[in-house]
């Protein structure tokens, strides 16, 4: 995926000005939150199992790409923003942020979902797989190999979502024909129009009988 947009093209270890700005925004919004927090946040009812107040972070544990995480997350943070902003797993892309493009597709307990339309706090105890968790070390996943072989991308921005969706599509048994692939991949938009090549890549993996 050499054409994929690079999040931070300058020195990887050093903060560029965008990241510094991001930190500033984070700090200032934290201060703002402090200033706005009412003295008494909403009280939990007797039977409520879990509660997080308006600006309160709550503990969330989940497994991401085989690794256990104990996290502290504000309720309004989506799974997508948690992955990208807090854990720096930036392979998962933010396209439309409204569940219309599929760039944010990840697997939760083995099922593909749009990570932009679910809250991180709702994923307590779940197993998440992102594009970073697909390859085995240096060995690419068969679907990743097939996307390269068939040119299943041009700009590459939709590619992580396409690949996560494609893996699930094959596992679900929805890759039986080009028509079925097109229908069950319709939640992933490619504005470069690499659809024919994506269908070819998925077909090859499916017909090759690979374990995906």
């Amino acid at each position, binding site marked *: 995926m050499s054409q994929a947009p690079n999040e931070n093209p300058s020195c990887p270890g050093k903060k560029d000005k965008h990241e510094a700005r991001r930190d500033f925004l984070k700090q200032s919004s934290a201060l703002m939150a402090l200033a706005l927090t009412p003295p008494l946040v909403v009280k939990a*009812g007797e039977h409520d199992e879990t509660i997080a107040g308006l600006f309160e972070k709550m503990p969330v544990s989940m497994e991401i790409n085989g690794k256990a995480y104990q996290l502290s997350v504000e309720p*309004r943070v989506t799974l997508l923003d948690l992955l990208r902003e807090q854990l720096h797993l930036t392979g998962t892309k933010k396209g439309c942020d*409204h569940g219309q493009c599929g760039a944010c597709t990840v697997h939760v307990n083995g*099922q593909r*979902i*749009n990570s932009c339309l679910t809250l991180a706090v709702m994923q307590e105890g779940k197993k998440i797989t992102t594009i970073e968790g697909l390859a085995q070390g240096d060995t690419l996943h068969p679907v990743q190999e097939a996307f390269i072989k068939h040119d299943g991308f041009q700009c590459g921005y939709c590619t992580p979502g396409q690949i996560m969706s494609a893996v699930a599509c094959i596992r679900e048994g929805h890759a039986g024909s080009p028509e079925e692939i097109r229908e069950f991949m*319709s*939640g992933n938009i490619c504005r470069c129009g690499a659809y024919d090549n994506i269908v070819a890549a998925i077909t090859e993996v499916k017909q090759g009988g690979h374990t995906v």
Partner: protein
Amino acid sequence: MNQFSYVRPASQQAAIDAITRDSSARFIAGGTNLLDLMKNGVLAPEKLVDINRLPLKNITLNNNILHIGALTLNSEVAAHPLVKTHHPLLSQVLLAGASQQLRNMATTGGNMMQRTRCSYFYDITMPCNKRTPGSGCSAIGGINRMHAIFGASDQCIAVHPSDMCIALVALDATVLVAGPKGNRRIPFGEFHRLPGNTPDKDNNLGKGELITGIEIPHSPFTQNVYYLKVRDRASYAFALVSVAAALDISNNTIRGARLAMGGVAHKPWRLHEAEKTLIGKSPTADNFRIAATVATQSARTYQHNAFKVPMAQNSIVTALQKAAAV
């Protein structure tokens, strides 16, 4: 997105209590529509009550009545053997909606609660009686290509976006509800509302009420069913017009018929009068055309959506032909 507090109640009663005591609280299940609306500033609840851990995720058949728990995912319902065997129409409509990613998140109850996709409802800079009662309707006199041809009012011409609900109204489902005053059952056709003077109310749920499931009675429509969804692209788009058709045919005679439409009204639109014209008739194109004409008699169009009337008629004929040919 606005800030909100978050609770994950351990019981159904705790969930109902949490909503009842807080006027701006909302249930969240899949969240696929709610979070979208919150990101756009259309909704800004101060508290979300996450009901995902409640035991409302099941599909069972008892005495030929199919029960589907409110938290059962759209993808699970679509693929379930009991649904495919007893109510294949429901499986078809679910697969016509959204994408597999969204179907893996969206729940049965949440699908019923989704809001219109009228672009003026989503655009918080524009007047909208559904979003801000009394502010006016921007779609009347605006771009109304996607809007209603049946049952609209001078307050709102938005349409209900669900595919799933079109099959459920056709199959005479019942909505199971729990609330502060106990449990009740709502016939599916009476769950959603026409806009009238209160377009802000999509349905007849009372304060604090939670959908716990749906029931579908035994039906003879296990074979001759078809869902035709006409849209701007081949997949993953809301309906311009959709038709759910179910026929019970024996000896070349229609014994029973169900017809319902999506994309045409503020609620899933059942076509009772058109159904009646089919009973006792043979499944021919001419008889289907008569039903289609009857179905659209009460249509009223706006500047950009007059095309929906012939589209609806042709779609009814095609859906019935496809259903009959199965």
